[in-house]
C-alpha cells in the first residue's frame, strides 16, 4: 500500500512552495509580469471600442458615403447647431452656445481676422471622420453609422470645395484628400529663443 497523503497537506505544501518559489504566478490568468491583475481583453472587447482613425486611414471601416446623402443627414442632425450653410451659429439656447463654422476662412490664417474652420485649418480629412463618428452629434454622440459619417464627410468637404461633389468617401478615398492647411503646423519650438527681460 502506497503512502497516502491528506489532500489538504498536498495542497498546502504546493501553495507554500508556490509562494516561496513563484510568488507571482496565479493559475488561470495569463502571465502579466509581476502584477497579474486585470482580465485579458478579447478581440470582441477591442473591436467594440477601437474606432479611432489615423491620417493614413488605419481604423477606417468598410462602407461609403456621398455628398447627397450627407446633405440630408446634415439637414436633420447638424444644421440646428452648425447652420444651414455650415456657417456656424452663436445661440445661448444651443449646447455650448452653438456649433462653430465648418467652412470658409481659407486664406485668412495669416491675417488679423483669421477664421479657423475645418476648411481653413484642419490638416487631415481623416480627423473629420474620427471626430464625427465618436463625438457628434452633440446630443447623441456615437449614434451615427459609418456610411452616415462617410456621407457627412463627403458633404462638408464638398461644400468646402476641397473635394468634388461627386467623389464618394470610403476607406480608400478619404485618406487621399489633401486639406488646404496640411502644412500649416510646426512642432513645439518653446521655450522661445529670444530673451525677453532685463
Amino acid at each position: 500500500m502506497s503512502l497516502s497523503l491528506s489532500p489538504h497537506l498536498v495542497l498546502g505544501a504546493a501553495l507554500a512552495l508556490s509562494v516561496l518559489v513563484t510568488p507571482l504566478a496565479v493559475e488561470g490568468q495569463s502571465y502579466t509580469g509581476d502584477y497579474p491583475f486585470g482580465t485579458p481583453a478579447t478581440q470582441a472587447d477591442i473591436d467594440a471600442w477601437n474606432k479611432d482613425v489615423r491620417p493614413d486611414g488605419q481604423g477606417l471601416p468598410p462602407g461609403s458615403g456621398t455628398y447627397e446623402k450627407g446633405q440630408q443627414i446634415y439637414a436633420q442632425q447638424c444644421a440646428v447647431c452648425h447652420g444651414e450653410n455650415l456657417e456656424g451659429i452663436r445661440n445661448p439656447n444651443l449646447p455650448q452656445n452653438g456649433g462653430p463654422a465648418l467652412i470658409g476662412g481659407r486664406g485668412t490664417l495669416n491675417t488679423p481676422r483669421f477664421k479657423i474652420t475645418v476648411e481653413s485649418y484642419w490638416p487631415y480629412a481623416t480627423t473629420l471622420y474620427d471626430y464625427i463618428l465618436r463625438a457628434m452629434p452633440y446630443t447623441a454622440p456615437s449614434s451615427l453609422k459609418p456610411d452616415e459619417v462617410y456621407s457627412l464627410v463627403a458633404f462638408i468637404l464638398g461644400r468646402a470645395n476641397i473635394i468634388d461633389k461627386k467623389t464618394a468617401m470610403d476607406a480608400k478615398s478619404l485618406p487621399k484628400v489633401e486639406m488646404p492647411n496640411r502644412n500649416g503646423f510646426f512642432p513645439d519650438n518653446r521655450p522661445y529663443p529670444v530673451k525677453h527681460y532685463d
Partner: protein
Amino acid sequence: MDQTQELIGEPMGESDLERPAQEDCPCKEDMFPKASRRQVLRGGSLLTAAAASVLLPRRGALAADADDAGSWTVPGQLAKSDYGTRSSYETVVREATPAGTDALTPHQSLWGIITPSGLHFERHHNGVPTIDPAQHRLLIHGMVDRPMKYSVTDLKRFPSVSRTLFIECSGNSGGAARSAALKTAQATHGLTSTSEWTGVRVSTLMSAVGVKDSAAWVLAEGADGAMLSRSVPIDKIMDDAFVAYAQNGEAIRPENGYPMRLILPGWEGNINVKWLRRLKIGDKPFMTREETGKYTDLITLTGKARQFSWVMEAKSLITFPSGDMRLPGKGFYEITGIAWSGRAPIERVEISTDGGKSWSLAALQEPILPKAHTRFRYPWFWDGSEAIIESRATDQTGYVQPTKAFLTAHEGVGPTYHYNGIQSWKISADGSVSNVLVA
C-alpha cells in the same frame, strides 16, 4: 509699527467688555466677501438654540440677549456619521461659464497650494458623464503582447504613486491677453488648480501588458460624450505618466474624471484625459481633433500654428490684492499668490509695485514642489497712491515668465492657448483693485 496694528485689528481695552461686538473694519468685506464677525456670532447661537433639551438647564431669556450670547454659551453640534461640509457661512464657489463647459477656481479666496476638491476647476467637451465604477474598464491594446482590461479594483492592487500637481487648461488666462474686461483672479486665471493625485504609473501597466519596442505614441480616450482623445508620446508615458483614481485622498470627483483619469505632470489640461477608458499603443500620432483643429497655437500673421505644445510654461498670479477687491486704506498688506511651471520647480518669484519698472524678490512658501502651485508672499506698505502690482515667475530651468508685450509682439493674440504673460492689477487711490492691461 503701532499704525500697522491699528489697521488690521483693534486694540483690546476696558470698553470691549461693555460694547456690542463690532465688525473688524468697514472695508474688510470688500477685501474678503464673507459674513461679518457679528453675523457669525448671531447665526451660531440661532443654530444651536433649538438643540437644547427642555428638560436640561438652559440659558434664560435675560441672559441670552446679553453681550456674551456667543457660541461659547450653548452646547455645540455633536459628531455625525456623515461627509463633512464647510461652515454654513462660507460661500466661496466655482464660477461656471454661460455655456457650462467650464467652472473656474476662485483663487482670490484660497490659501496655500492645495485647491479644495470641490473648487478644482472643471472643463469638459460634452458634460460630466455619470459612470458606475463597477462597470468601468480601462482597455490597453494595440502594440502590446497582452491586451488587457482593468477595473478600478484591479488598478488599486498595483503599486501606487502620489504626486501633488497642478493641472492647467491651456486656455487659462488666454482672455487676459486680449482685454482687461475679466474682473477677478478667478475669471482671468481660474482654469488651474492643484491636487494630490494617487494612482498607478502607466509604465507599470506597460510592463504588465508587454509594450512592443516599436511603440512610439499612445492614444488616450475618455468615456465622456466627446470621447475626448489625445496622442501622447511613449517617452512621456514611460517617464512620469500615471492613471489616477484618487484626488486629495478620496475618489476623484466626477468632474475631474471619476473613476480614473490620466495624469501627465506639467502638461496642458485636456491631455490629462478624464474618465479614461482606453490606451491604444501605436507608432504614429493619431491626429485627433483636440491636437489639430483645437489646442494648436496659431501664431498671428504667420498663418502657421504650433502643434503638440504640451508643456505649460512658467506663470504666476497675485491672488491678494486682486481684481474687484477694495483695500480699506494705506498701510501694511501681504501681497500673496501662486506660481507654477510645467517644466521644473519654481526658482523665484519677483514682485513689482510700480507696473514692472522695478522688481523685488518674494518669499516662497515650502514645499516648493515640481509642477505644482507654489505660494509666494511679499510684505508691502501701500502709501495710498495709485499702484500697479505684478508678479513674475522663474523656474529652475531659468525660464522667466514673459510680459504681455513680448508675447503680443512675437505670437500675437491668436487663439491664446498657452498665454502666460504677466498679470497686472491696478490699485487706485480709493483702494479699489482692477484688472489692467500694461503695454
